[in-house]
């Protein structure tokens, strides 16, 4: 029984992180119709910034305060995003999709090496933060307390994002731009600003995902490339451009992964990709889409 509970918690941790990554990817696609292949590397950037900051601050600061570094790392990534969108993506909105994919692929290569240049080729660890939280007893089983922080941050961000998109004036502008760009322009919405902000929020989520998970698993070069494909699986299952879909997709992927690791570890990844392919074939707009186009 207790193993089952621990597995449920692990699934929740995984759902939280996947949602943060895939939600950002989906938001960017939903608003500006760009599939950002460099998104996984922005997640990696968040992880490296967090690990570096924790390494520098761990000696003198009490662990709960170190958690404040998570939004800081996220903000750094958001800032990078705010620089990328106007300089590199903006000139390409009127060009064919192939060029957007290629440009973000080039960005992926650049970010991979830029991170290597800044933080060095060796993996960074922020496990001091993870161990500082120690174990906690949940319903009779021992569980790392930090993992509960990951769950809280993930689902907290999901709530904040939902409130932002559906309950603020800016959220209305965001959704209007996403639905009909020309109409939004003619209504006086500053679409450029909306794009910069939407892209930055997408990057912020990726950065927070990296920052929150790095105390658990460390920051390694190449983690972004792996994460991106998983994020693809999530958004494909949930529907590109839909935040609710990203959350549901993240949950499905996390459950399937937990089951696969328990019962047939060799096929873990293959099963995920096959599910994504199956969803694309049957419902290309995602399981939770209202229309089937």
């Amino acid at each position, binding site marked *: 029984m207790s193993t089952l509970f621990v597995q449920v918690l692990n699934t929740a941790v995984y759902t939280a992180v996947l949602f943060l990554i895939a939600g950002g990817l989906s938001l960017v696609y939903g608003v500006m119709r760009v599939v950002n292949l460099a998104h996984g590397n922005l997640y990696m950037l968040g992880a490296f910034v967090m690990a570096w900051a924790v390494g520098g601050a761990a000696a003198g600061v009490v662990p709960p305060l170190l958690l404040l570094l998570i939004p800081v790392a996220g903000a750094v990534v958001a800032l990078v995003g705010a620089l990328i969108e106007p300089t590199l993506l903006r000139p390409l909105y009127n060009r064919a999709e192939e*060029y957007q994919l290629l440009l973000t692929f*080039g960005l992926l290569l650049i970010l991979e090496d830029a991170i290597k*240049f800044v933080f060095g080729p060796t993996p960074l660890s922020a496990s001091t933060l993870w161990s500082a939280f120690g174990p906690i007893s949940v319903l009779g089983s021992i569980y790392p307390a930090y993992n509960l922080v990951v769950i809280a941050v993930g689902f907290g961000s999901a709530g904040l994002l939902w409130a932002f998109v559906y309950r603020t004036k800016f959220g209305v502008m965001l959704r209007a731009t996403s639905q009909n760009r020309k109409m939004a322009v003619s209504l006086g919405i500053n679409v450029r600003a909306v794009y910069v902000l939407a892209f930055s929020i997408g990057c912020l989520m990726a950065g927070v995902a990296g920052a929150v998970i790095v105390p658990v698993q460390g920051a390694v070069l190449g983690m972004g490339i792996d994460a991106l494909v998983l994020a693809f*699986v999530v958004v494909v299952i949930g529907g590109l451009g839909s935040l609710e879909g990203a959350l549901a997709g993240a949950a499905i992927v996390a459950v399937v992964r937990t089951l696969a690791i328990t019962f047939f570890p060799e096929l873990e990844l*293959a099963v995920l990709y096959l599910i994504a392919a199956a969803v694309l074939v049957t419902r*290309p707009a995602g399981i939770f889409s209202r229309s089937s186009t």
Partner: protein
Amino acid sequence: MSGTAATVARASKPVPSGAYLVPVAVLLLAFPLVAPAYQTILLAYGLAFAIAAVALNLLLGYTGLLSFGHAAFFGTGAYAAGFMVKYFGVVSMEAFLAAGALSGIVVAALFGFVCVRYTRIFFSILALALSQVLWSLAFKLFWVTGGTDGLRVPTPVLLGGVFGSPDDKVTFLSHQYYYYTLGVFAICIGLLWLIVHSPFGKALQAIRDNEVRAEFVGIRVRRYRWIAFVLSGMFATIAGTLWGPLNGLATPEALYWPFSGEIVFMAVLGGFRTFSGPIVGAIVFNYLKAYAVGRTEYWQLLLGVVLVILVMAMPEGIIGTLGRFGRRLRREG
């Protein structure tokens, strides 16, 4: 689709004359006699990549489908050679190529059946997802595929051994194997040229330019796309099989999606609106990568910057840009 009119205009451009072919063929044939072994082997890599890039371009440039999963076929080709050695004890290059082409057709027929239901971004992601299935299987089923260690692809016997048995691996790769690669390259590119300029190829271009109209003239759009996908996959697989002995190993890296990105990079670097563009792109990319990897630890940064500049400033690629300059010169002169 604002570029459709321009695409139609470009597609009706006359086929470039064969005048370039003779000097290029002489250069390629004489290369091992004048260049050091290292350069020749590098060019052999480039020729193998060139087949993959032109194969990809059958979809990208001529059918209008961007595959981000062609590493699946390239890697399948390399693994086909590895499997032939490991499980059948065969070291004949012709057997490798036959096994490669056959497995390429099977994999591409399966993947294509699923992928061609969609176009644009969904096609790209679907191709990527399916290619990752193969990657994860090669990666995880280590007792079959050797996992990250990969499978060894030893020096093969060419044409039943008429060139004699290879004594030194470097000499073999830079001479016998180079000419063998060049021969396969010439056959594949020739076949692809025939496909592109056949009525079937014209039909693909019609589908690319206007799917609805193509359907109205009676082209079975999905069937044609599927056939194009299978052909493209098969040639990419042959490229991978050729690459196997050069690399000496079939590893999951050859199936991994960033490598798919590199194949697309090659096609765009040369210019995917032209037939010869991807060939030039692949050879240039291969040199660029070899030198970047040799000179700096940050070769990905260099390649990334080149790609970004290319997309921003030179979207027609090397051949496309040269062609435009050529046309301008002719107009003015």
